[in-house]
């Protein structure tokens, strides 16, 4: 009887199951672990920039505090909220796909894309302002005034903006890739590829999206909130 069951199961192996895994549970666990390993490398990818930040911020504290005050706190805070909202919709999309709710899955995925788009749009507005104010590192950089003392900031404020553009730029690149992955998920969801039995792609893109959110959770205070107490 048990043998008959096993034989029947092997003939009716689910289409999502790759042949080198014993069952879908083992496949899901291996996929999740691999995604976490990738995220470890991502931590170190961003970690290099955070290390540069630690070194230069501790060396040029005053320049960093003054330059940080030139970032738009309102836009930064709104973007933080937008990204947290997108993490919520992403978590709900993972849940909905695991619960077999196709419409809700697509709705939450579309919502996550829209919120990601709002984030990138606000980021574009901020970048535009930085270009207009000559606060972009390079030949057109003009040493800005310290809003607290009304004296010119140290020259190293340019270093702050270099790190600002590298760190937020790399983060934005991850967001753009994330939006591409979410679009791919919507296509798959529309094709009924997800079920309570198998929603691993949604789960893994979710891990990626939440990781990108975590990076921003650290970028926001470290870039936008350095010198507010000096104002």
């Amino acid at each position, binding site marked *: 009887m048990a043998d008959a069951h096993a034989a029947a199961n092997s003939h009716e192996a689910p289409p999502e199951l790759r042949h080198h895994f014993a069952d879908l549970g083992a496949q899901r666990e291996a996929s999740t672990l691999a995604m976490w390993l990738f995220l470890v490398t991502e*931590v170190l990818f961003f970690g290099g920039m955070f290390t540069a930040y630690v070194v230069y911020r501790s060396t040029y504290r005053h320049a960093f505090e003054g330059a940080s005050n030139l970032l738009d706190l309102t836009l930064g805070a709104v973007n933080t909220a937008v990204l947290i909202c997108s*993490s919520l919709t992403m978590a709900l999309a993972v*849940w909905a796909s695991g619960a077999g709710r196709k419409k809700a899955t697509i709705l939450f995925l579309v919502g996550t894309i829209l919120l990601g788009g709002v984030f990138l749009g606000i980021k574009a507005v901020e970048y535009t302002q930085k270009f207009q104010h000559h606060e972009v590192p390079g030949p057109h950089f003009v040493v800005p005034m310290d809003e607290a003392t009304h004296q010119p900031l140290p020259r190293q404020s340019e270093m702050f903006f270099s790190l600002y553009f590298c760190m937020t730029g790399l983060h934005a690149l991850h967001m753009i890739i994330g939006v591409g992955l979410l679009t791919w998920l919507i296509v798959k969801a529309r094709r009924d590829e997800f079920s309570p039995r198998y929603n691993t792609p949604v789960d893994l893109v979710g891990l990626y999206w939440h990781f990108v959110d975590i990076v921003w959770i650290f970028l926001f205070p470290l870039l936008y909130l350095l010198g507010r107490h000096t104002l």
Partner: protein
Amino acid sequence: MSHGSASSAAPKAYFAVFGALMALTGLTVWASFLHLGVWNTPVALAIAVTKALLVAWIFMHLRHAPKFTWFVAAASLVWLAFLILITTSDYVTRAWLPIYGR
């Protein structure tokens, strides 16, 4: 990896974490205007670490993940600590010795 078992409890937890993340964002903005001396950055980082742990624990399902996944996730922090601590140990100690080119 029990997704089905907590199917109705999961969204509730997500909304709770969402509320906490929003509140902590407000808190960190508010705290940044306080005159805490050297403590401004530690307070901001403590709030950020709390938010990151909430995201990892609930949104990223570490809560339900096998122990080995916890191990891998924690390993990222170990390597990050190596990267930052060993690099800064160089920068901090350079001024201690009168070495040319420091």
